[in-house]
């Protein structure tokens, strides 16, 4: 995928909000090693004060802060900044992750995590953020080509016919590769407010789209399932 060369050289500012000193430390060391400019906040209060003044490009937020509920923090941050938010949360709380994403977080990483997993998310989100809003243009991913204006889709050189809803789904996903879209977000976008609980519509639509894109759900090239949460386009 082509990235804007100009952006590659601007040093990105990342705000880390985490109360555990060890995690703060390894995040800072690793992110600085990747030439990001890192700021640290220990409490939600500090973070809210920071995010306005800092104009950061990305926020990494631990959901389990001592002074405030993580979901509240996301909502407050979202009012102050459009910077992508990556949430750090412990395993076995899928509901919490979905709620965080629905409140405005852009992705999550489950603790404990390896640094490469986090770095991949950071890179993807910064890239999406830089390119937004995506110009109406032709998108190439692997052998897939999508013309977002004429709604034409090609796999290699073969034109593929997608139904209106299949194209809407593909467009939602491919517009922000790497970003998770929750079931609710997709259902609302494609079917509307009243269908937000009808996840089986979405499952079936994804199945059809994958079939047409020749995408093996077992080894997906394009659409990745995030179990219990939603889907993301491969980045």
């Amino acid at each position, binding site marked *: 995928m082509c990235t804007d060369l100009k952006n590659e050289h601007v040093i990105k500012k990342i705000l880390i909000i985490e109360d555990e000193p060890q995690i703060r430390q390894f995040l800072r060391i690793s992110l600085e090693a990747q030439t990001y400019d890192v700021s640290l906040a220990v409490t939600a209060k500090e973070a809210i004060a920071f995010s306005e003044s800092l104009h950061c490009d990305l926020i990494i937020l631990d959901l389990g802060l001592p002074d405030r509920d993580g979901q509240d923090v996301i909502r407050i941050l979202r009012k102050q900044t459009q910077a992508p938010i990556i949430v750090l949360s412990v395993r076995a709380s899928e509901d919490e992750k979905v709620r965080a994403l629905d409140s405005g977080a852009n992705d999550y990483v489950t603790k404990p995590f390896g640094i490469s997993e986090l770095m991949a998310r950071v890179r993807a989100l910064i890239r999406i953020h830089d390119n937004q809003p995506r110009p109406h243009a032709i998108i190439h991913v692997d052998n897939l080509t999508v013309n977002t204006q004429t709604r034409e889709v090609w796999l290699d050189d073969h034109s593929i016919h997608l139904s209106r809803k299949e194209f809407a789904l593909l467009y939602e996903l491919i517009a922000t590769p790497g970003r998770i879209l929750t079931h609710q977000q997709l259902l609302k976008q494609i079917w509307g407010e009243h269908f937000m609980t009808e996840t*089986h519509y979405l499952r079936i639509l994804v199945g059809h789209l994958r079939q047409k894109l020749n995408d093996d759900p*077992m080894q997906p090239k394009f659409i990745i399932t995030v179990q219990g949460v939603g889907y993301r386009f491969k980045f």
Partner: protein
Amino acid sequence: MTPLLTVTKAISPIKGYLLATLTMTGISLVTALLTPLFLHTSLLMLFMAGIVFISAKTALGPAIYASALSFTIFNFFFTEPYYTLDITHRHDVATLVLFIFVSLITGNLASKMRLAIAESKQALERQHRFFAFSQKMTSAMNAALVLDTLQQAIQHSLSSAFYLIEKNQQELVFTPSTPPSPSISLLETIWENPENSELIDGEVIALRTENKTRALIYVPSPLTEEQSAALQTFSNLAALALQRILLAEDLEASRRLSETEQLRSALLSSVSHDLRTPLSSIIGSASSLLEYQEKLTADDQKQLLLTVLDESQRLDRHIQNLLDMTRFGQGKVTLNRDWVDIRDIIASTLYRLRDALDSCHLNISVQDNIPIIWVHGLLIEQALVNIIDNAARVTPADGDIDISVKLTTTSLDIDISDNGPGIADHEKVKIFDMFYSVTHDDSETKTGTGLGLAISKGMIAAHSGNIEVIDNSSGGTIMHITLPKHPVVYGPQE
């Protein structure tokens, strides 16, 4: 249903007298019509029949009244001189005296018989009630049900108001909830010591087991002896049932306690062994690195760091297993069902196990057009992770692991086959027990905590599915999982 303990009076007295008057008037009319045809002394028999009928239907009073009425009517209308109460013929006097005498005796007999029949009917009904009640008591599964049944039985048997009193956290709880007029402290005293029940107006019966009051029945209005006896019988039966339930609960509690004890000791040994082993490697590798960093080759340093990472991940898996298991042990798992594509679940399972599966050949076959299933995706994923992780652990390097998904008429079947050493028949059931770990002769095989399969079984069972072990014809085992199918409702796609 008629109340059991009120004496069933056939007809109310006023109605009895009315019936007597009506009957006698009717008979008089008939007698008047028949007078030209029969002797008036024979017609007296009609009146006799009427008196027997009244006696059988009503009480003694109306019967005597009917006799007197008959006598007067007969005397007035049918004996000479007519339309006076005088009697001309002597034999008429004798007939009438005899008539009064006989009618009084038959009347009395008939009414006694009626009472006896009513009583035996009542007794039979009462026995039926007691029998039904005692049957309910013996089958009642818990104390609440016993008290509920008792309350219903008393309600049916007693026309007067009553209270069922229980104790909840040192407070008396009344059913119905408005407390009765006598002071609660008086009832408290009776609760503690039922001999004091004379202190209160009305009747109090205590349900006691093992010298402890479990409930009180309080009837404010006075009861007949019969009612009080019935109340006592019901209460005794209920107290017996409570005693039985208490005993059963005690047994269950002690069984659970010993199970918990076993689990706790197994958990402790698991924590001390399975958590400490990876921790030792982590501490050892990290401290070596810190102490001797300059003296170590870059390759060795990398090896030590890899050990730290691998062992930490192993630790994480153990902890996850322990958490899952305690959740299942406490029955606190709520299924968060959603429509899920089984292929998605397999994909994320394999992604999570990508390192463990590195040295195996993986063959996956999923039947076409597998419908989406209605499950808690993460739980099914965890179940598969544990099973496939096991398969990977027992399969030798370059061995095969096959995963196949098929549809039957009622279920979705997932088979996971490995080429490991297999599982002996006597161990096939045990492997799903908590902390049971198959020990193999070759100590090379890494054994797990004995939690993985127990957790998988729990997670599949929570979905009304099942796992069983089958021998693999080409060596090793097949884990055969069945999940129930759910009809999919197709929605608007366009």
